[in-house]
């Protein structure tokens, strides 16, 4: 198991390393390939997520193609996919709250990591509320049409999402006051360095430095 601390360090090194070069090289795929070998069950879910995000990546690449910057288009496409695939493999099956709470173990200011935690919590809440509304629409047989009634219901849904989020925020505030929240989220996750962490770091460094020292793979 790769520790979250090392996962963050790896992703930062890897994405910055790739971002500073203006060309594609084969060894840049070493780190994602290593992770794919270590976590074979995460490959398919990661690819599915990647497939969806490629709608946006392709749009950006397409804009480069339209201005006849073919190499740039390819670079954007490969680089973005490599970084995202590496990220998805790293964080697959890791809980979003665990990920955000573990930011404090990286030495990030407490307030910043707490802020990230609550951002994640609210994304989770909004997603949950949206799922509930979707269920209500389904069981109440909502039929989408191009009528004023349909648009009114859509407007209601957006309004209700806002109201529910405010309500949840109020409840959270109440819980914070009642539990004497001091502005810090505690995380009792792993702090030790495993062999796997070090091997991953080696692969990440190899992905970048094989290019710097001009080893052609």
């Amino acid at each position, binding site marked *: 198991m790769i520790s979250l601390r090392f996962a963050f360090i790896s992703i930062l090194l890897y994405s910055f390393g790739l971002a500073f070069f203006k060309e594609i090289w084969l060894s840049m795929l070493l780190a994602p390939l290593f992770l794919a070998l270590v976590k074979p069950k995460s490959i398919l879910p990661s690819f599915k997520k990647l497939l969806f995000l490629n709608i946006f990546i392709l749009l950006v690449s397409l804009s480069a193609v339209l201005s006849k910057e073919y190499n740039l288009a390819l670079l954007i496409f490969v680089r973005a996919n490599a970084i995202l695939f590496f990220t998805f493999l790293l964080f697959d099956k890791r809980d979003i709250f665990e990920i955000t709470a573990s930011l404090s173990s990286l030495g990030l200011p407490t307030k910043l990591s707490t802020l990230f935690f609550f951002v994640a919590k609210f994304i989770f809440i909004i997603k949950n509320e949206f799922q*509930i*509304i979707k*269920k*209500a*629409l*389904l*069981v*109440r*047989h*909502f*039929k989408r049409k191009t009528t004023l*009634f349909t648009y009114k*219901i859509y407007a*209601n*849904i957006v*309004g*209700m999402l806002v*109201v*529910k989020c405010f*309500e949840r925020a109020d409840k959270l505030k109440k819980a914070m006051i009642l539990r004497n929240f001091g502005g810090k989220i505690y995380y009792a996750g792993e702090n030790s360095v495993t062999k796997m962490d070090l091997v991953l770091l080696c692969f990440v460094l190899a992905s970048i430095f094989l290019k710097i020292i001009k080893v052609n793979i």
Partner: protein
Amino acid sequence: MSCSLNLKNFSYKIGENKEIRNINLNLSHKEKIAIVGANGCGKTTLLDIIAGVKSRSGGELELFHQKIDSLADYKSVRDFIGYLFQDSDNQFLCPVVIDDVAFGLLNEGIEKEKAYLKAKMMLEDFNISNLQDKIVYNLSGGEKKLVALAGVLVNEPKLMLLDEPTNGLDEDMQLKLVKILQQIDKSIIIVSHHREFIDKIVDKIYKITDDGLVLIS
């Protein structure tokens, strides 16, 4: 006797690992039953599957003599199913009481005047006409439950699925709900922990166990 629901060797998953198997149930027309079981045993999930919100993992499901093989098959029977949420807040799709009760009718394409008239009559039947212009979120728990029930009944479903209907209701409100449900001449499945309440309404009580659905009373 005509049959509203038939489950044969039915199975479904709760979460990723747990699977409930051997569910056999035959619900006759206008029959009222209750399903009990421990927390997390899959009562609400079973209702969600019957309502066509979630998929089953195996077995046969027939609704109103129509075989349901996939969620797409619900298109023709969805109008006959009414679902009362455990938390009424999650069921509302309009902020004002009368709009929410009329939602199902307007959604069916019924004329505005007729829809609102029927919704008002439904509120009168429940003795809650005084709430018609109120905001749903400002109502008490009991009032919300009655408004939600009115919103379901106004569509005249043949099968009603009630998820923990007494949740958060005081004794007076529970009695009111008992009287309403006793008068309803439809097939009803109630999922509840409240034995005293369900005893007054249903003909049979089933329990979800590791061996499947077992008739206990």
